[in-house]
């Protein structure tokens, strides 16, 4: 059970406080409700580029990182298709520094041309390091536009192409900031050995002076139900054939989310899972195979990703996965197996509660989805899933016409000796 207190400032900033006396460190996590899904289709990668610019100096503090480091803290941030999340962990005596730093960034950035110029280059290098100069690095860049035709999930957080980042202008940067970085578009969580009244006082002192901003209501094009199977075949200079497929699934807030998550566990969590036992170990179709949910907040994707064993064709590999999916559709999951994946969820949940930062992030995303208290009720939601729920859902998700398949072929080497 994670106990927390929640309050809102007049400018709309939601603050959640969780007391955890077991650690001398405090986790300070601020989530902005903006991600790659909020980008213009011609300026993709912007939310993530922006995350970099947030470290380039704010209106009154030019050296964000230096202040954190002097305070004995560590900080980082990440951007997803849905959110941008910033966090600091620091000794509890220095908590006010985190308030000072984050409120100043929320107030306004310094917007120096140098920072924009350098971070554009840094992000281009990140693009190369993680996507372009890596074997298989472009898989997600191929999968997303295959699966999404309308919804902005069709591009990855890094962006569709390098030029979108290279061409970003200061005007666009400023516009993006005032449109999305606002107290009424953020959730702050403080977790650690803190006093709730102290957090209230500090929140008022540092964040209350920031004005509420005009944040546009999100109105994204919804992805129409997919009625025809889609495939894409590519050839690359890589050593091993890879099979990748994705099926549309429900949103994070949907009641079916928990059953869908358990399906991925039944198929692929741990060495006793179905895909590993059947397709890796027994039939030896794959050397490695994984099923997982993408974790998007809007209706997202259920993925399969596998490296083919030597000498296996794509067709045989695909048939193997389909046979496992048919089993899910045609037979009820045995009680023992369902108990197993639920036990595993329970233990994973307990282990995740060891870290104050984990808890802080979890509270923030839960609040965004609808209610911070989901951190406490989700175990019951998993418990409530039945074998019938799983069968129903499997039938609905794993329809052939709902599939998006990428055949990623290794180029045959001429001089293959």
């Amino acid at each position, binding site marked *: 059970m994670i106990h927390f207190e929640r309050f809102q400032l007049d400018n709309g900033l939601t603050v959640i406080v969780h007391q955890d006396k*077991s*650690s*001398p*460190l405090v986790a300070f996590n601020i989530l902005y409700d903006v991600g790659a899904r909020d980008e213009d289709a011609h300026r993709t990668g912007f939310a993530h580029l922006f995350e970099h610019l947030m470290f380039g100096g704010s209106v009154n503090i030019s*050296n964000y*990182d*230096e202040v954190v*480091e*002097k305070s*004995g*803290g*560590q*900080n980082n941030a990440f951007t997803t298709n849905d959110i941008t999340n910033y966090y600091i*962990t*620091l*000794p509890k005596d220095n908590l006010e520094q985190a308030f000072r730093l984050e409120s100043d960034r929320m107030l306004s950035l310094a917007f120096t041309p140098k920072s924009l*110029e*350098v*971070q*554009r*280059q*840094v*992000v*281009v*290098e*990140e693009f*190369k*390091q993680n996507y*372009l*100069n890596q*074997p*298989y690095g472009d898989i997600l860049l191929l999968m997303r536009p295959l699966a999404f035709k309308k919804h902005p999930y069709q591009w990855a957080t890094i962006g569709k192409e390098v030029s979108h980042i290279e061409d970003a202008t200061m005007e666009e940067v400023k516009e993006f900031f005032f449109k999305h970085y606002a107290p009424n578009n953020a959730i702050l969580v403080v977790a650690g050995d803190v006093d709730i009244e102290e957090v209230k006082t500090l929140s008022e002192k540092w964040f209350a002076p920031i004005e509420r901003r005009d944040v546009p209501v999100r109105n994204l094009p919804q992805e129409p139900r997919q009625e025809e199977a889609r495939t894409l075949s590519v050839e690359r*200079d*890589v*050593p*091993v054939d890879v099979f990748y497929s994705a099926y549309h699934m429900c949103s994070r807030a949907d009641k079916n989310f928990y059953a869908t998550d358990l399906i991925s566990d039944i198929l692929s969590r*741990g*060495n*006793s899972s179905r895909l590993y*036992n059947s397709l*890796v*170990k027994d039939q030896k179709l794959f*050397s*490695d195979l994984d099923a997982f949910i993408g974790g998007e907040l809007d209706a997202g994707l259920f993925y399969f990703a596998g*490296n083919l*064993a*030597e000498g296996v064709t794509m067709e045989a590999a695909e048939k193997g996965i389909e046979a496992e999916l048919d089993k899910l559709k045609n037979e009820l999951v045995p009680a*023992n197996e369902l*108990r*197993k994946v639920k*036990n*595993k*969820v*329970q*233990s994973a949940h*307990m*282990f995740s*509660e*060891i*870290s104050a930062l984990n808890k802080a992030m979890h509270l923030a995303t839960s609040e965004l989805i609808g209610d911070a208290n989901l951190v406490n009720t989700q175990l019951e939601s998993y418990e409530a899933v039945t074998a019938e729920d799983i069968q129903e859902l499997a039938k609905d998700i794993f329809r052939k016409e709902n599939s998006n398949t990428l055949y990623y072929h290794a180029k045959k080497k001429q001089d293959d000796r």
Partner: protein
Amino acid sequence: MPHFIEPQKHSLQNGLELFLLEGGDQELCCVELVFEAGSKRQQKTLQAGLCHALLLEGTQNKKSAEIHEELDFYGAYTQLDINSDRASVSLYTMNKYFAEVLPIFVDAIRGAIFPEDMFQIALQQKKQSYAINTEKVDFLARKDFFKSIFPKHPYGASAELADYDNIDVSDLRAFSKDFFQTSKLKVYLAGQLPTDGLELLNEQLGDWTLSSKDFDPIELSASKAEKIYTERDGALQSAIRIGRRTFNNHHEDYLQLKFLSVILGGYFGSRLMTNLREDKGLTYGIGAMMMGQEESGYFAIATEVNADSTKAALTEIYKELHRLREDLIPEEELHLVKNYVMGQLLKMADGPFSQVSILKNMHILGFGFEFYDAYNEMLNNLDAEKLRAIAQKYLQEKDLTEVVVGRI
């Protein structure tokens, strides 16, 4: 400095050492068995790694699937870690199932038979990973670097493609017999001690026959600084590794050199990050590290840079090394990095699960938590002159190996 939990040391009836680090709010624990079975003990490449990877994959009485089915049913997790010095196997479990899970875990390890089919699967997986890794500039640079600084020593050895066709299951069984089934081991338990925890551990591990054999250090042959370039057409980034062999934590200069590595490239605002990333945008990231191993240690700078700017990046790295050798580190920077390191230690040592991994590594190096007293003392007596002298002693360009994979 972190508040370290006082480890409680117990001896099981066979003399096996058990270290207990109690704490935490959840009714959870982690049991870790640490074997003297690092890859430096192997006679053949891949032997230790494959043997270790297959420790939980089948006994005379139970197939791999049954073992994992049972462990998963109780919500338990296992984790395998191996490096050159040690191999470990960990069990993470809810305390309410400790009595059920511990025997499954221990039996699997003690009765491991290394079934041929599981061996073939693991071998194919590793072979494919190797093929994929050799497409990565970073992997290739690391491999060349360690080979250069540790010639003819296991710390510098790595597998080649042909090695995957030159190993069979009997090699694994032989290794297991010498290094897992009868080897010295240490046991760690972190978290809350389950009900009857000590009795159960004694029951499961107390009759294990243990060798008291000590190992001699492996001879380190002389190495000389090299420049190794591997051209890769069309590479978008070049991987760079610059560094040298040093020494381990017992050496009087270890802590100072470690501190220098932080100044140079050990945190976000470090000199290399500030120069190459935040000022020039040549890379997504660059780091410097000083690592101690049981028998040696190394200092290394690592990055992947825009391939069109490889030369510029090298120039800047050497400039920063030059500055460390020539100029005194300003008081303010010393102060900042001291605070940063202190904070980092607090985070590294946050809770019993984090502390146990520190303790385990300290034991491998021949210390306990008291190592951090010396660390603390060093941080409280930072001396810019002394640090410059250390930089002059160890970070001369002529003594550093330079590896580039990509384009020059």
